[in-house]
């Protein structure tokens, strides 16, 4: 009788634990942590009216940092934020209205073209669309 009770406890507890080990991963899968995926094709970068005119902001595009710029005209542009010289993160300069790399004083224009300093190549341009006031940044075509 004693053995029978012991077996029942093991069976009951074991079944519960087994159900837990099935449902916990299922639940974790349905409710993933808020982390960006590594291989993304587009990201939502927030409401367009929150990005001030003549300002820039770095956003995460999968594994890459992207510089989002709202120009004086209100147009939003996005560029790879990785400097083409030695991979520092570039930033928008409100005073000169250019993209600037602090590491070696490299400058790019607002089309991403390297215009002064050591950067040897232009920055990749990320297409931007604004849908219902939401900024959508997409992967550049040449990146495949």
């Amino acid at each position, binding site marked *: 009788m004693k053995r029978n009770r012991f077996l029942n406890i*093991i*069976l009951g507890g074991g079944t519960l634990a087994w159900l837990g080990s099935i449902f916990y991963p299922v639940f974790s899968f349905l409710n993933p942590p808020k982390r960006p995926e590594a291989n993304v094709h587009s990201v939502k970068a927030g409401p367009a009216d929150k990005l001030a005119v003549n300002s820039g902001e770095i956003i995460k595009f999968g594994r890459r940092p992207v510089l989002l710029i709202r120009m004086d005209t209100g147009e939003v542009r996005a560029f790879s934020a990785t400097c083409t010289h030695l991979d520092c993160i570039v930033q928008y300069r409100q005073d000169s209205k250019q993209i600037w790399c602090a*590491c070696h004083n490299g400058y790019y224009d607002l089309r991403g073209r390297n215009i002064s*300093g*050591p950067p040897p*190549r232009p920055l990749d341009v990320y297409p931007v669309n604004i849908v219902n006031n939401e900024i959508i940044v997409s992967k550049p075509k040449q990146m495949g």
Partner: protein
Amino acid sequence: MKNQNHASFLCLAAMAVLVLWAAGLRAAEDDPPLSETDQCLSCHLDDDVMPQDYGEHDIHMQKGLSCAGCHGGDPANDDMDDSMSPAAGYVGIPDKKDIPRFCGKCHSDIDFMRQYQPAIQTDQAEQYGHSVHGAKLMRGDTSVAVCTSCHSGHNIMPASDPRSTVYALNVPETCNKCHGDAQYMKKYDIPTDQYEKFKKSVHGQALLEEQDTGAPACNDCHGNHGAMPPGITSISHVCGTCHINNMEYFAGTKMAAGFKKKKLHGCEECHGNHEVPKPSDKMIGDDKSSVCAQCHESGDKGFLTARVLRTRLDTLAAAYRKASVMKERVNSLGMDDLDIEFILQEAKQSLTKARTMIHTFDTLKVSALTTEGLVKNQQAIREARVQIEAYYIRRKGLGASTFIITLLIVALYLKIREIERRQKSTTGEV
């Protein structure tokens, strides 16, 4: 009615445009080639006496300027004596010493040149007069380079054309044609190994091996039409055209002032010129292989500064390597390394900035940047540990659930046996 009129008008207009377009096409097709209308070309092609270096892609030819455009004469006249007479404006082959003036006739005339390009440069001949080549030519030395030596005579293409002798990737070879020829350069008593050295340099490898047209070729440091070896005062400005921060940081140091007094070439003293190697942290410090040790002696102030700077860089570089290895581990375990990667990018940025800040020789400024980098590295390492721990928790979870399932199976087996045994005993009693 009004709409009908409107439609017929549009139809007529479209037909007119089509007819005009077709006529234009016919006209273009009907234009006879230059080799038929231009008598110089047609005879020289027929007799196979075109200049040796002639190329049909020559920019002048492309723009409709054939032989007479430079050599004068009357290309419409098929009588050789008349067309090539002084009366017809024929000037023939210019002497080498006259070539800059010969090309300058058009290239220095903005009114003429702007029809081809509104913002075209027209100071090449003037700059040439200030170059070493030009100065020597004026003194009667006809061995020096003139326009055609670099651009070719009859196969001239814009510098943006990869087939051009002056396209960025081709410039080193073009200069080397003369400057690498020891026999030809003998009378000038200057080195002839610049190209060999350049090929091995960080600039040369980027340009010639990686085909990176953003990297400097000879003309980016020496100028092209006004080519000159950069002087002592201008050398850091030359390097500073691209390496702006390095130039500014160095210009504010006591060392820069000392260099000036001793007539030493700024950047070149440590980095070399044609053979500029890829800079490394080993260049700074107090060991014998460092460039600092070339001038500083053990115990002097500069020597101590160099040691501190090197230690700071080494510490940060080692911490960055360690954090990168941990990030790789996180990645290989299949865990999320995205945030760590972003933090590491910032750490690397601090290292890059510190390496540039070295040019101030200010230990405090460099330390501020290396400390910033170390903090980032520690943050990355902390994040990596969290991910690695999470991985092991998952593994333990998997072990525990496997154990539970096994236990469940065993218990189930025993339970079934027990039920069977009970059933048997009940049947036996009956």
